[in-house]
């Protein structure tokens, strides 16, 4: 259990990259990028976990409770939102590319431009 979360994060990262490299459809590639991004969430939150801790939200618990690390949670929150906007921008680019060149296959696109 001490290594499992980190290994899962590493696995998601590599499997997402594999999808990106072998993708034959840019929309699928954007989806793979979203998968790759989620590995960072898993890694960050795994580092911030504390055994027996609870969320650092003190509305309904005493202020000396044992809590997990809020810094990595704030980082991950930022990460999630930026990830979504990057996805949106990339998808807009894919639509635009498709309008220009009539394809979403990266190989065909590189043949067009050389």
């Amino acid at each position, binding site marked *: 259990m001490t290594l499992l979360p980190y290994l899962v994060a590493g696995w998601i990262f590599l499997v997402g990259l594999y999808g990106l490299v072998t993708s034959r459809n840019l929309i699928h590639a954007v989806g793979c990028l979203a998968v790759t991004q989620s590995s960072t969430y898993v890694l960050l939150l795994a580092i911030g976990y504390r055994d027996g801790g*609870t*969320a650092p*939200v003190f*509305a*309904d*618990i005493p202020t000396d*409770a044992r809590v997990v690390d809020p810094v990595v949670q704030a980082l991950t929150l930022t990460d999630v939102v930026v990830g979504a906007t990057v996805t949106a921008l990339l998808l807009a680019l894919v639509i635009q590319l498709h309008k220009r060149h*009539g394809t979403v296959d990266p190989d*065909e696109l590189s043949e067009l431009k050389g």
Partner: protein
Amino acid sequence: MSTSPGWLVAAMVPLLCLLPVLWFVVRGEPRNRLVAQNLAQLLTGFVLLLTAQGFGRSTYLDLALVLAILAPAGTLVYARFLGGLPPAPLVRWTAVVGVPATVLPLCVVSGAGRETVKLLFIGAVLLAGAWVTSSGSQPSSEPEPDGTDGPSGSEPSSGERAAKRD
């Protein structure tokens, strides 16, 4: 805060049910995938309700509330773009049996108060959403009748482009 393991053990049941549902989302027939996705949202709702009690944090209930509201919206929007939603008795029965079986014991434990009202509200929204989405919807009537999905994939104009490809 105090964790109560009993509720966390109970949460394990819907959590483990997600594994076979995942199989249907990934490899099921095209029409069943959306149903499986709908079922996954329902099961996730149960896990969220049970763990909120299990971790002894009533503020975690907000998650179940947001899920209950977003789930039917997401399913119906997909149904519109993926070509209709078939009727799903499995989802309906899971909701009819599962929602009371999850919410009522939680209400008994939390006693009368704001939390119980919230629990009952979440249960009602989950049930209503699952009931409506499980009764199915007409195939997509989007402006574009020749949808992306469906077996009829060949149109005359595609011929020359496909030829250019190889």
